[in-house]
């Protein structure tokens, strides 16, 4: 019991309180009269009067005020007042759930300040406001960045990896500053963007999240279920991530400086090992020998392959194009706040060079947050402005996927030097029999692609409390972006030789959001009510232009002013959203919780008939541990049951006019006269409607052993129908596709988070484990009941089909190689015909299963579902340790189960035609009955290898991995007596320390196109690998 907690208050103060809280309401006047009565009588009869408030000065209703050692007691009223008969000097025990119990000696009139217990009463940011954690009935996870700041990363997304149950953050590419994807609860859509909605300080952002400096962020709130997200209505189907930036708190006056410098390097153990020069020459030599043996080849073996032993390792293209690269990060934060004013200014500089040569990104960022409260506390206003400027250098050149640089690296011949004797670049780096590829080293050094992105996030708010509990809140925000691109590629490396190409383009985009709502918060005895209602409007627009120049006389001037031919175009696009929102929160005694919310959205993206949508939700919670019968169960400190159901939508498809048919221009030049034609180019769908997501969530929050162990469990079930997808149409209609509502999918899963305090005292050790079990199944699709990835068999990796999970792999079933003549005779053969009974199969070629049993293997009838990318479970495990001045954190992320389709390896790196450099392992391939190799790599016979490049079950590998995302070791210097610093901390950190996996590719987190399931989940077409980063950092707080 601290003396400061108890203050004698005077009649005058009570009068002031009365004025402040009670005047407008007759009922409160009555309370006041009663109170005065008690106050007066108390003195005469040994009655004690008082008020219980929390540490923010807000009344605590329903608190129990007991006379110690007796069963006598009263409860505080809605305004926190109580009166109890007691002798002066008796000990009062004041208790309320979520607060630390206080004991104090009774005075005539007392004021009690109850301190909130952090975990239960923490207010967290929720949609449109804040709410006490304990009173939330939806599924919400919060993450403070306090312990994440030491990670040497440029994107906040990387900090979130493995931290929140049900939130899958995957680094699908190591491209600096890019390539991180979110999926909350397995996403929900086929086509639409599966990224959650990001809301920064209440402002839904419309641009990219790449420009946001992680150091500006204080907390993340992840809204997962429909009741939590419902107020974001049509945009909430994939969940919402609320980002709260740093705001100074009363009493702050500090200057902080953070710096961090690291070196990234690529782990070498998973780099594919292609044949080196002598191995490749050997392979090709054998290939030509086999052509002589089996194909009647009579020519000479190309000279370069005649004597393989003359070569050593040759050119290692991978080494030439990769490097160790620095990453650095500096931030300064200035914060000051008084009772009525708070300012925060943060300035940062981040630089990340790519591990791929001649690439990198730089980010300059600033943020100013300013908050004001008027003298009487009724008016609160503030603004924030956050400009940033980003420079991407060669950072968006095609590095991932088919035709990307990481594929090209394995296509250049190790027999060839990248340089001519005079030091200039060799253009063609292929050896005999290979496909003509261009020197990738030259491509990366002779291409300049600079993007400059300016972004300004700004918002302002104005809250006015007209009446007690009734506030008008107005928020406005702007998300403004501008991007320019300057691209120039030397004619030495253009695909058409000597055709230097320049591009100059710019985009100017922006959105504004304006919201106004009324928020009414009141308690009626034990009934606590909050009602919120209002409107919101948002509009996004973008103008863009692109100029392309050709005919540069040389590489001296890389700007279009030197081009002899310039063509260009410009465009404009916009969308808008207007919404009405309403929400009611009600709880009884703070333990029976109810919430209902509704958003009505009108979106310009849909046709006139389906432009408006309603997104309602309800949720209920019961804090069981508050019940009397639970008090005896001493080990349970907190138990809450909650359930929610709601409808949300998804409208984040690309193309703002998909409901309308729009025209495109097509040229047809009649008799040499350039003539522009114009007709419908994109078929609109006037009946396109919202994608609808109905979600049930049941959850439990449990803390035991004095909060040493806390557990959150959620079960969810989402049914998404009216799935929007680009629906393939028969091309005989004149159109290839239309955006349409194509079907339905169910997603369900279990999420568990366990936080433990393992040790306290000198050595403090806490752990956090989260695991999610996510499943999904497609339940309906338009005719013919499936949607293929594309029509080319070699890249038709998966099929969306009713009864199957998203992205289920589709292809041939691998059965090894045809062993001998007998095996060949007995087995079905690829493309066999009556006149050509062996088709293109032979002994030593790939044998696949004859699915339809007709004795012939063909592309249409013999492919089937061969695998499933869905992991059994995913999660993360994080530990924090501190001992004296040392602290240490270890974060890991893992996926268990599920498969990955290693297309990069089988479609490209094991091409037995010799058109590319195969993996060294493929040297051990079939050459004859007596030299059959290891049974994995087929023979090189001309015309038989194509089936190896069409998806088969051999391509599938386990996607299980455990990744040690970050280890940080920190030391807080002893600053006692230091005149300059209040706090000084040094730390060392390793990002992406280790990935434990059996997967043979470079990155088990890879995905074909982020985590967009329509583009394929867990398809590896070779992406930019994720570097390991070793860094050291220093953070200082000045006195």
């Amino acid at each position, binding site marked *: 019991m601290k003396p400061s907690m108890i203050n004698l208050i005077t009649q005058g103060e009570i009068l002031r309180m009365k004025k402040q809280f009670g005047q407008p309401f007759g009922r409160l006047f009555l309370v006041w009269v009663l109170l005065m009565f008690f106050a007066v009588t108390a003195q005469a009869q040994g009655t004690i009067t008082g008020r219980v408030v929390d540490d923010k000065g807000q009344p605590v209703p329903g608190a129990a005020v007991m006379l110690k050692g007796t069963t006598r007691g009263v409860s505080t009223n809605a305004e926190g007042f109580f009166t109890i008969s007691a002798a002066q000097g008796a000990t009062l025990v004041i208790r309320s759930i979520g607060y630390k119990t206080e004991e104090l000696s009774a005075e005539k009139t007392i004021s009690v300040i109850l301190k909130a217990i952090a975990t239960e009463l923490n207010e967290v940011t929720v949609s449109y406001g804040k709410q006490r954690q304990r009173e939330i009935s939806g599924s919400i996870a919060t993450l403070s960045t306090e312990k994440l700041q030491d990670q040497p990363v440029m994107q906040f997304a990387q900090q979130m990896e493995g931290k929140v149950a049900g939130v899958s953050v995957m680094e699908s590419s190591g491209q600096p500053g890019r390539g991180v994807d979110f999926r909350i609860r397995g996403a929900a859509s086929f086509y639409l963007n599966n990224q959650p909605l990001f809301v920064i300080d209440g402002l839904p952002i419309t641009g990219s999240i790449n420009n946001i400096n992680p150091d500006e962020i204080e907390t993340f709130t992840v809204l997962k279920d429909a009741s939590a997200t419902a107020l974001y209505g049509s945009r909430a189907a994939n969940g919402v991530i609320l980002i709260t930036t740093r705001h100074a708190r009363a009493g702050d006056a500090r200057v902080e400086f953070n710096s961090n410098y690291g070196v990234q390097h690529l782990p070498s153990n998973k780099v594919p090992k292609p044949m080196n020069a002598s191995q490749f020459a050997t392979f090709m030599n054998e290939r030509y020998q086999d052509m002589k043996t089996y194909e009647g080849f009579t020519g000479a073996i190309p000279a370069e392959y005649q004597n393989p032993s003359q070569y050593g390792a040759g050119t290692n293209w991978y080494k030439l194009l990769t490097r160790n690269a620095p990453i650095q990060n500096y931030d300064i934060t200035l914060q000051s706040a008084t009772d009525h004013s708070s300012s925060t200014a943060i300035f940062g500089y981040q630089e990340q060079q790519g591990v791929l040569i001649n690439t990198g990104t730089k980010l300059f960022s600033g943020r100013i947050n300013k908050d004001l409260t008027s003298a009487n506390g009724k008016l609160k206003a503030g603004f924030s402005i956050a400009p940033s400027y980003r420079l991407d250098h060669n950072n968006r050149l095609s590095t991932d996927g088919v035709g990307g640089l990481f594929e090209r690296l394995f296509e250049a011949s190790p027999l060839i030097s990248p340089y001519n004797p005079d030091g200039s670049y060799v253009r*063609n780096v292929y050896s*005999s*029999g*290979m496909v*003509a590829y261009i020197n990738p080293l030259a491509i990366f050094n002779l291409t300049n692609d600079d993007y400059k992105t300016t972004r300004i996030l700004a918002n302002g708010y104005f809250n006015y409390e007209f009446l007690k509990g009734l506030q*008008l809140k107005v928020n406005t925000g702007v998300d403004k972006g501008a991007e320019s691109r300057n691209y120039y590629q030397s004619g030495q490396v253009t695909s*058409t*030789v*000597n*055709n230097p190409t320049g591009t100059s383009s710019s985009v100017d985009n922006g959105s504004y959001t304006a919201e*106004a709502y009324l928020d009414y918060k009141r308690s009626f005895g034990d009934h606590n009510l909050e009602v919120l209602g209002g*409107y919101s409007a948002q509009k996004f627009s973008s103008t863009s232009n692109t100029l392309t120049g*050709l*005919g540069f006389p040389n590489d001296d001037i890389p700007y279009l002013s030197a081009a002899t031919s310039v063509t*260009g175009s410009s465009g404009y696009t*916009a*969308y808008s*959203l*207007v919404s009405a929102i309403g929400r009611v929160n009600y709880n009884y005694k703070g333990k029976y919780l109810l919430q209902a919310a509704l958003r009505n959205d*009108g979106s*310009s993206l849909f046709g006139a008939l389906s432009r408006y949508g309603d997104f309602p939700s309800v949720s209920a919670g019961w804090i069981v541990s508050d019940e009397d019968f639970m008090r005896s169960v001493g080990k349970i400190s907190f138990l809450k049951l909650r359930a929610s159901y709601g409808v949300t939508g998804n409208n984040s498809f690309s193309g703002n006019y998909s409901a*309308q048919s*729009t*025209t495109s221009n*097509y040229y*047809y*030049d*009649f*008799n*040499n006269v350039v003539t*522009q*034609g*114009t*007709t*419908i*180019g994109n*078929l*609109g*769908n006037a*009946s396109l409607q919202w994608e609808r997501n109905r979600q049930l969530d049941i959850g439990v929050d449990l803390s035991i052993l004095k909060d040493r162990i806390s557990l959150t469990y959620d079960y969810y079930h989402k049914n998404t129908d009216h799935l929007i997808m680009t*629906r393939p*149409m*028969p*091309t*005989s*209609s*004149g159109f*290839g596709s*239309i955006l349409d509502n194509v079907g339905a999918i169910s997603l369900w899963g279990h999420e568990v988070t366990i936080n433990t305090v393992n040790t306290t005292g000198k050595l403090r050790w806490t752990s956090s484990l989260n695991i999610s079990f996510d499943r999904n199944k497609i339940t309906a699709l338009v005719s*013919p009941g499936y949607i*293929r990835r594309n029509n080319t*068999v070699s890249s038709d990796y998966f099929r969306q089909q009713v009864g199957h999970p998203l992205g289920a792999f589709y292809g041939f079933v691998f059965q090894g190689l045809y062993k001998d003549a007998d095996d060949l005779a007995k087995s079905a053969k690829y*493309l066999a015909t009556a006149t*050509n009974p062996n088709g293109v199969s032979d002994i030593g070629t790939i044998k696949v299963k004859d699915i339809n049993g007709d004795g012939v293997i063909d*592309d*249409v009838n013999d492919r089937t579902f061969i695998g499933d990318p869905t992991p059994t479970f995913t999660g993360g495990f994080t530990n924090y340790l501190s001992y004296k001045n040392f602290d240490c954190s270890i974060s890991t992320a893992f996926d268990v189960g599920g498969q990955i389709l290693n297309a990069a390896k089988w479609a490209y790196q094991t*091409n037995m*035609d010799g*058109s590319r450099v195969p993996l060294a392992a493929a040297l051990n391939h079939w050459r004859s009955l007596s030299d059959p190799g290891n049974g994995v790599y087929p023979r090189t016979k001309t*015309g038989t290898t194509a089936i190896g490049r069409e998806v088969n079950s051999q391509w599938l590998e386990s996607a299980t991995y455990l990744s040690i995302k970050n280890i940080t070791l920190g030391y807080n210097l002893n600053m006692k007596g230091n005149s300059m610093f209040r706090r000084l901390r040094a730390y060392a950190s390793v990002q992406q320390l280790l990935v434990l996996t059996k997967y043979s590719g470079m990155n088990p987190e890879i995905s074909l196109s982020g985590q967009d399931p329509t583009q394929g989940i867990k398809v590896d077409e070779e992406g930019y690998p994720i570097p390991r980063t070793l860094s050291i950092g220093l953070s200082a707080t000045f006195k």
Partner: protein
Amino acid sequence: MKKLYILVLLGLTAASCKKSFTDLSPQSSYSDANYYKTTQQFGSAVTAAYAPLRDVVVNDYLMSEQRSDNAIYQSILSNRGTAYTDREALCEFMDASTNSYNASEWQYCYQVISRANIVISRLPSATAVNADSAKYYDGQCKFLRALMYFKLVRLYGGVPLFLKEVKTPEQAFLPRSTVDQVYTQIVADANDALKELPAPAGFPQTGAASKGAATVLLADVDVYLKKYADAVTLLNTLPAMGYTLNANYSDAFQPTNKNGRESLFEVQFLGGTGTGVTPNPLVYYFLPRSSSTALVTGIAINNQSTGGWNTPTKDLIGSYESGDKRLDASIGIVEGTYNASDYFTYSAVKSVVGYTAPPSGKVAVAYVKKYQHATPAVSGSSDDFPIYRYSEALLLLAEALNEQGQSPLAPLNAVRERAGLPDITATDQATLRAAILHERRIELAFEDKRWHDLVRSGNAVAVMNAFGATLQTQISYLPAGAYTVTDNRLLYPLPQAEVGLNTQLTQNPGY
């Protein structure tokens, strides 16, 4: 105070609730709601309907020429990507329904049809379009639709008959119509076009479809349908419209001479680099793959990834009569060497006339010369691609006359005389039938007529199997089973993607 905030709130509410706030239309393009109103807009819509014709001819050589005994491809064993194997398979009669070039041909033919259908469907309600323009636009679109269905019905048999603008996904799924139904529609459309389109106002023509184009199309269809008398009547109207043969065979293919008196309809190309140019890339497709084709094209073109197709066969070269001027105009020889990656280094360009063998250590590759002219850009040339020339009208006339037992010699010999060949004097109908077919092969070589002629004449199975057997002895790179031509192979498979998507479609037999 209370009033103030209510006012503020109401103000915001009103502003945000304005209906027009969510009523956005594209501004950098039209939407179909505000387009298709004026004469000029319909004119542009018609222009857009022509545009995919270029894509049709960029694929059609694989379907209608290289499939025949006129052409073969150059081996590229170092690259077995589907961009190569799919094109080879069409040549070798080993194509499957998944062939992407087959799918492209189908798609682009239907894209012309779709754009024509938009105009045809919307014109009747377009009150602002004057009657003469409406007639002209309708005529052009009916011509284009007829031309494309005629291509489709010959390649695939009965196909889905789209005759109205497709506005919803449901309308995109149609079953196949019968061959007869398709031809009935072609005849109806061609007749409408014939009525609505004007004869050329002068030469060179505009490049748009004219009465002459509709006339020869309908006559061609009539010959297919064995309505020979109708064909003769139609074809005899052409001279009065100003059509005639050029003095020299090669004149018709000169970019400087496009849309001239011999041209009944050709697909327009325009080389260059400016906005809206439409270069013809085929000129590079038809040359051996090389890092530089400068010896033939004048400027260095790298056609390593695009070239190697539609190589004239020995069979075709050997079938030119001695002294036929068309041989030198149509075909050239380039000498050089292939490296182990199957890329060709050009060393000399030679005339095919009298050519015997390359010098030691060199390889001779024939190439299509008739479209090789000055090339203004690396992306392609200004060479138009002929669809109907007057010489074909003469040969159709000859055929129609012969099939009715009348003498075809006047039109037939007009074509031969220009080629520097002596007159044919035969009178036997079967001999003349063969002579006319042969004359078509030579006169219309590489104009995507040969495969259709082989099928139409009933010779395809016999000719192609024999051709394949000979070819197997000439070149080493044909796979086993190539050129196994059965009746089923006379029609292409419907693209697998279409059959997979539209369950009402039945696949052609044998696929």
